[in-house]
């Protein structure tokens, strides 16, 4: 069985993120590349479920050469082969999910696959587009958000498990080819061993450009189906109105309270200032509340 796992190189955004002025783009230069967690979980789930003699796993990404590092981590994590799709004429900023799905579709047609596995969503855009789009383009069966898979007793088919509400589960099997998507928490990627890393560093990575895909420009330069118009960070909560215990609120204050964050509790005061001043204020509070007696 030929299995293709689609992986995406993401940037580890756990560190401080800086914007490039004045265009407000994220400065990605200093961020570390990492595998999209859902893709890594997808690879792990497949490798843990399907023995080597039953299935050959190929990881594939649409990325420039810098992404070879993450392909090698995939190889060290259990993949047998790695393919990188890229062409000098491609530019990362011009690629949208639809273009990537088209390029992956071309590559998967070339490589032939019985099962295509994708992470259910990317770390950055979280659109969850690639899996369903590939199923459509490949005219393949699609099973979303698989959290467990197993080979049937007769070794003739694979059973896919999906979670439902209230602990219900669904076990599905389908005809080849199929596309499945996997959530980031479906499987925990293994700690990569030294020898596997060394072995992975020597595996040749296949490079497919547009010519080798037989791809014309109009076959990948799609306009996105949906465009993000605006990104809105969480709306700051209106400051809560503190109510003095001895005075009723005025109508204006009541209105403010209803429109705002509600009534503030006295116990949620924040002590500000340097540590000595804060410590004194804290002790005063404890004494005032009769928690401490002097």
């Amino acid at each position: 069985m030929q299995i293709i796992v689609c992986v995406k190189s993401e940037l580890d955004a756990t560190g401080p993120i800086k914007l490039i002025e004045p265009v407000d783009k994220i400065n990605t230069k200093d961020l570390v590349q990492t595998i999209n967690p859902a893709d890594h979980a997808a690879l792990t789930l497949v490798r843990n479920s399907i023995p080597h003699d039953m299935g050959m796993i190929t990881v594939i990404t649409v990325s420039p050469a810098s992404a070879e590092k993450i392909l090698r981590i995939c190889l060290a994590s259990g993949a047998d082969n790695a393919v990188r799709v890229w062409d000098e004429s491609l530019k990362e900023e011009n690629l949208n999910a639809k273009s990537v799905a088209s390029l992956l579709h071309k590559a998967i047609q070339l490589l032939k696959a019985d099962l295509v596995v994708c992470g259910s969503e990317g770390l950055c855009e979280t659109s969850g587009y690639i899996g369903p789009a590939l199923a459509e383009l490949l005219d393949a069966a699609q099973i979303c958000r698989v959290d467990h898979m197993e080979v049937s007793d007769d070794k003739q088919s694979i059973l896919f498990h999906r979670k439902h509400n209230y602990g219900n589960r669904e076990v599905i099997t389908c005809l080849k080819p199929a596309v499945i998507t996997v959530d980031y928490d479906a499987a925990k990627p293994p700690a990569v061993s030294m020898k596997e890393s060394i072995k992975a560093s020597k595996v040749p990575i296949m490079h497919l450009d547009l010519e080798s895909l037989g791809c014309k420009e109009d076959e990948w330069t799609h306009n996105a189906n949906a465009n993000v118009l605006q990104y809105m960070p969480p709306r700051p909560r209106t400051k809560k109105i503190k109510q003095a215990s001895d005075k009723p609120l005025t109508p204006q204050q009541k209105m403010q309270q209803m429109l705002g964050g509600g009534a503030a509790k006295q116990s949620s005061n924040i002590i500000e200032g340097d540590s000595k001043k804060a410590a004194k204020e804290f002790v005063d509070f404890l004494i005032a509340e009769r928690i401490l007696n002097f």
Partner: protein
Amino acid sequence: MSEEKFDCIIVGGGLSGLTAAYLLAEKGLETLLIEKGNYSGAKNMTGGRLYGHSLEKIIPAFAQAAPVERRIVKERLSYQDSGKMTTVEYDSRGVAAPEGESYSVLRGKFDKWLADQAEEKGAMLVCGVRVDDLIVRDGKVCGVIAGDEEMEADVVILADGANSLLGQKLGFKHKISTNQVMVGVKELLELDKDVINQRFGIESGEGVAWMFSGCSDVYDGFLYTNSDSVSVGVTMMVENIKKTDNSVPQMLEDFKNNTDIAPLIEGSRLIEYSAHLIPEGGPEMIPKLYGDGVLITGDAAALCANLGFTIRGMDLSIESGRLAAEAVLAAKEKEEFSTNALSYYQTSLENNFVMSCVKGSEVCLAAVKSGDLKGDPLKVFNNLIKETLIG
């Protein structure tokens, strides 16, 4: 190379390890570098100023390509005493000699860049793996053990940092004591570029290295300007921490709230907090540097020099990595990796500025330990002038 054996395995992806990996791979040796962090630089920390001369020898004009923050053009030394502060400034703008330059750096970025350079030369980097032990047969180091895996090599370079547990296991290095190491804690505070330029009187790309003494009986402070952040921290002998009831993080808070420091960092935002052990035992702390099939470099070899107001370690680490690589290359030519063959490393270190720098720091170190650098301002400046002008 056989499937299971490398020419050289380097443990630790800091500056000395990466330098050795770069040079050995450049000469075609099968080199494996093992780093326990997820990438080189993930666990590395500095104050941080890098004197460029060591790396300049290996990668000429490296600062044009490397992610250095700012070229240091102003040195400031401040002595604080009871709310008073005297500052001496040395301005080196107009002096343009790459080998004489120093730069503020952030190790998370810088080491990652150097690791990429080493990989480009052909070194193999394996990250996220901790080396637990060494393979030793008949007294010869033959490789490394990570978990239940073993990997063999003709020679192993230990660049595993100030603690160097592997050096200790090998019996080359004693367990460190509290009077041999300093602890450094640092906050990286984000600040607008223009605000930095205005507050410190510098232009874009120019930086300030500022050392503070006398602000406490226990610690000294430092401040370096980065591209769009400042590194602010304190260093202290671990042994001296017991002199105060304050915790180390509280000491850093006190330093930041100091009336002379607070205005410099006003409006900044904390983006990183880090701490590090600094080997400060002077020449006495330097372990056995070579053995049968093994060399020790960088902080693991305690190659660090306390010059009173400033602590140098990164340039010494890079140089020790270079000399270790030279020793391995010389040994490889003869295909002999015995103690005798690798003794060239010790000889070249002795004849190099590294050892003279570490040995020269003894006077300053004694002053730091005795507290002379804190009691009498005249002593401070006397020591400074003596070290700077007389050596």
